[in-house]
């Protein structure tokens, strides 16, 4: 079964039009994002890959409303939203669970902030605990959980907050390879059940192809959209697909695009280091 790639009948859930972000670094302008156009449909799964320092995290900060773009507009459900903060779910790479709260009480944080009664919020969280592989751990503190479980708890917190869109910033980046694979398969299942709109950042091309309907490749700084690729692999997907011919071909195409940017990013970085030492300043990281 293939899902429609972009639903043109209804406005896209999130649309970025010509979004740019410039900072000033030691009086020198620093262009982090340059005219980004991006579109995520309702219930879509879209990934962004790019070399480190391409401004992916800045992009997420802008979409979530933590920062404002220098230029361009962000449309949510076809509407401009100047006060987006709190309407877009954001799951950073670190789990950022509150260590003094049990897993259950961490999960309900978003609902609690919205003013939902704790008892009601807990009931809702308990309903999903099984699917998130956290049954039996509701009264545990984060310190006694494994890395994969903490990430799932953080994802449950994002899901329960029930935002229009979920931004996932390399959620599996810090996990070991085996755990990551099982987490990816699990996320595919969960996404199928929950039908949430997901925008996903990753360094991992396999992960992007396996999970997404569409992949955006960003350039090295300043971050521009270098390539947009629709992933027309059948669903439901499993990890076995990574060796299929169609998968390998898509992966090759994306890798080629990223490789060019990685080299450019490296060159740029050495240029920065050279400039910084020239001025006796600190290395820009």
């Amino acid at each position, binding site marked *: 079964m293939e899902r429609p790639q972009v639903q043109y009948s209804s406005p896209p859930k999130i649309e970025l039009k010509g979004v740019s972000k410039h900072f000033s670094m030691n009086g020198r302008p620093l262009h982090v994002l340059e005219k980004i156009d991006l579109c995520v449909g309702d219930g879509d799964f879209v990934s962004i890959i790019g070399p480190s320092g391409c401004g992916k995290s800045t992009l997420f900060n802008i979409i979530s409303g933590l920062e404002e773009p220098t230029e361009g507009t962000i449309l949510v459900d076809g509407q401009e939203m100047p006060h987006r*903060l709190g309407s877009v779910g*954001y799951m950073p790479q670190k789990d950022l669970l509150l260590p003094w709260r049990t897993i259950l009480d961490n999960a309900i944080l978003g609902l609690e*902030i919205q003013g939902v009664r704790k008892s009601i919020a807990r009931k809702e969280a308990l309903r999903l605990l099984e*699917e998130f592989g956290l049954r039996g751990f509701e009264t545990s503190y984060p310190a*006694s959980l494994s890395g994969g*479980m903490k990430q799932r708890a953080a994802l449950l917190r994002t899901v329960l907050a029930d935002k229009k869109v979920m931004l996932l910033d390399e959620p599996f980046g810090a996990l070991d390879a085996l755990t990551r694979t099982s987490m990816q398969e699990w996320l595919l299942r969960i996404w*199928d059940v929950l039908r949430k709109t997901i925008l996903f950042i990753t360094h991992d091309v396999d992960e992007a192809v396996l999970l997404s309907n569409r992949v955006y490749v960003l350039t090295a700084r300043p971050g521009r959209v270098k390539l947009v690729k629709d992933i027309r692999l059948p669903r439901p997907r499993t990890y076995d697909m990574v060796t299929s011919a169609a998968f390998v071909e898509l992966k090759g195409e994306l890798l080629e695009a990223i490789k060019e940017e990685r080299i450019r990013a490296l060159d740029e970085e050495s240029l920065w280091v050279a400039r910084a030492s020239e001025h006796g300043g600190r290395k820009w990281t």
Partner: protein
Amino acid sequence: MDVNRPPPTNSRIDVSLGQTRPLAMARDWLPPAGIILTALILWEVVARATRVPRWLLPTPTDIGSAMASSWELLLKHTWVTFQEVALGFAVSLIVGIGLALAIAYSKVVERGMYPFVIASQTIPIIAIAPLLLIWFGYGLVPKVIVVALICFFPIVVNMVDGLRSVEPEMLNMMRTLGAVRWQLFTKVQIPASLPFLFSGTKIAIAVSVIGAVIGEWVGASAGLGYFMVRSASQFLTARVFAAIFILSVMGVLLFAAVAISERYILPWYHTEKRQKAMARES
């Protein structure tokens, strides 16, 4: 595919230390007990062998018999000192926490108050104790004030640090969940500051007894500090030692009470510490 099946996970981390409880207790308590016992025996033997006059250096058995013979008197004075410590500490806890919250929440309060909080520590307490005597007399109040003045500084400074210890990423995550300023404060900053508050409280409780004794030395009609001054002037040295012994026991017990309440109030912190300790040992 079965959606309800969670992916395989690492099993729950075993939290037991892999040791039986009496054995672990023996490991913790035997070394200090041994050191104390050896020191006491050495003291007794040396003091008897060298025939130092008793009023100059009483032996541990002299001190023990002094305690036994004047236990009623000691109990009365201990109760007075304990009241001073408990009240002064309670005042410093309430004022200290309130001040720390105000300083962390408001930049204006921080700029206005923080210099005075620090300056208050540069004033020698011994120097203002006579003033308190003039203003408040020989009763409980001046001692409570001295104890509170000594205790409140570590409480304020540690709690302010704790309230500021939260990573900006954590606060940003809370903002994306829709949290506003006071929610960040009550749901993240205050709970995050509690381990720091307990660190400050442990320092405060350890010095609180000193504050009470200073207050009593300057002028009092009861309390262990007063008892020490009176005994010393009559060369009842064994009684002075007895008072010192009771004061240090009081300090240790108060410290233990704070440490135990930390375990009950912050069970998560205890879990975290134990995990870290295990990681270090393995």
